[in-house]
């Protein structure tokens, strides 16, 4: 039988065995570490030793929420409007500042020392939760809605700055370099070579942040930073859970509406922005 015959080739074609250590790529290794961490954490966390009837307690507590007291809808509407206003302004200021910080944190655009500095700054900002930002802002500016705007702006920068820098880094820099090659100055290369590609992603992240900020703005009022939180706090203090339920329902309505709308917008703009989108669409 000649070496080229199909039969001889078939006899030689044996699937080589993969040693176990070759399967330990980054994905599998991190997954394994995570599972080990779950097992470890599960053995460390302990509940209350007391013999409590959890379901009965929960049932009694939730029963206080019903029926919701709809007499506070008008009052809630006004506070809800303030919450949305806080979120809109905070997102607006955060977008502006994050664009600058995001550019500085993008490895493909900024020098290394600036990238390291900006990323460190973003890490510090992200470490502090929104409620703590609100406490800081209230301490500095007093208990009002403006403190809420400042707190959420700072909180949002931590996320938007990171997302924007990643959006800038995802852009193929060859286009901007070729524009520089034909005499475009840095601003023109950015405006015509980088910005059009990054814009859909940036807007998509911004809409997500707005939606997120509306949820956050409902909470920061707990420490006096304006919006619905103030009302929630008062109802909680006086155990008016039926009124508390009305506020929650109002938040749920707004957030669900915004979620539906933003999801549609974000899907559309990121699909439109994808260079891999089929021509037929």
């Amino acid at each position, binding site marked *: 039988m000649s070496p080229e015959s199909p039969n001889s080739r078939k006899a030689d074609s044996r699937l080589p065995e993969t040693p176990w250590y070759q399967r330990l790529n980054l994905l599998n290794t991190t997954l394994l570490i995570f599972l080990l961490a779950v097992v470890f954490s599960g053995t460390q966390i302990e509940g209350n030793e007391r013999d409590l009837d959890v379901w009965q307690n929960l049932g009694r507590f939730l029963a206080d929420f019903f029926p919701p007291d709809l007499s506070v809808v008008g009052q809630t509407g006004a506070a809800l409007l303030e919450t949305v206003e806080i979120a809109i302004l905070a997102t607006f200021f955060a977008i502006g500042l994050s664009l600058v910080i995001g550019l500085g944190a993008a490895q493909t655009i900024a020098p290394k020392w600036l990238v390291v500095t900006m990323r460190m700054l973003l890490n510090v900002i992200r470490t502090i939760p929104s409620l703590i930002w609100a406490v800081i802002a209230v301490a500095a500016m007093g208990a009002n809605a403006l403190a809420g705007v400042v707190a959420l702006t700072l909180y949002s920068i931590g996320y938007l700055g990171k997302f924007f820098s990643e959006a800038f880094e995802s852009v193929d820099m060859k286009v901007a370099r070729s524009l520089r090659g034909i005499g475009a100055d840095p601003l023109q290369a950015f405006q*015509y070579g980088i910005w059009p590609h990054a814009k859909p992603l940036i807007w998509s992240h911004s809409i997500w942040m707005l939606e997120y900020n509306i949820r956050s703005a409902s909470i920061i009022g707990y420490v006096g930073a304006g919006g619905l939180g103030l009302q929630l706090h008062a109802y909680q203090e006086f155990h008016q859970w039926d009124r508390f339920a009305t506020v929650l329902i109002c938040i749920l309505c707004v957030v669900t509406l915004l979620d539906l709308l933003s999801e549609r917008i974000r899907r559309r703009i990121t699909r439109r922005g994808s260079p891999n989108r089929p021509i037929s669409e």
Partner: protein
Amino acid sequence: MLSAQGIGFQRSGRWLFRKLDLNLYPGDFLALVGPSGVGKSTLLSCLCGTLEPTEGSVTVHLSKENSVPPKNVRRHFGIVYQELQLTPNADLLTNVLCGRLGRYHSLRTLFGFPKKLRQEAYQLLCELGVGENPRKWASHMSGGEKQRIAVARALFQEPELYFADEPVSSLDAYYAGRVLGLLRQEADEKTKPVICVLHNAEHIQRFADLALSLNPNDPEAHKIRRIRPSEKEPAL
């Protein structure tokens, strides 16, 4: 206008070409030919200054400048890259208009281009058969259409020299002839030299003055052959 003295390029220890001399004069249309992987694109990059040759030197003499290395005057070159390098999420008109960015201050182009320029760019898109929807994004166009937009951008730039890396590889016979015809016209009417990587023998015969072929087996065995008789000095 463009002169290369003894240039060579080595990649991973292998010479793609060596001891290559070339003199290009106004109005010359030079075709770079040879099998795939022989180093045509690399040679083109060395000539336009995006790559530094391993040995030898390239100088360019433009109308208002002394002889300088190409990387110093690249803004005067109209380059059609093999990967095209269009802005995918910008519309066709903007992509073509980008050819003129070097002529305006960024404050002038911050809010778009003047109407007259937009009209000119649109005219060029129409000439190349992609004017039907100038507001469509480049990423939504087919490969051939994108190639024509890249050529339109280079033409709109009104450069002093053209470098094109396989500018008609995705085009049908009609548009390939149209694109190469426009480049030939730039060489004939405006005496702008054109250096173009081409594969099709008919295109080379029809449009080029000179053909420089690289040899995959011998980096020093490159050959320049004159296709059209010229009154200018010989290229080699």
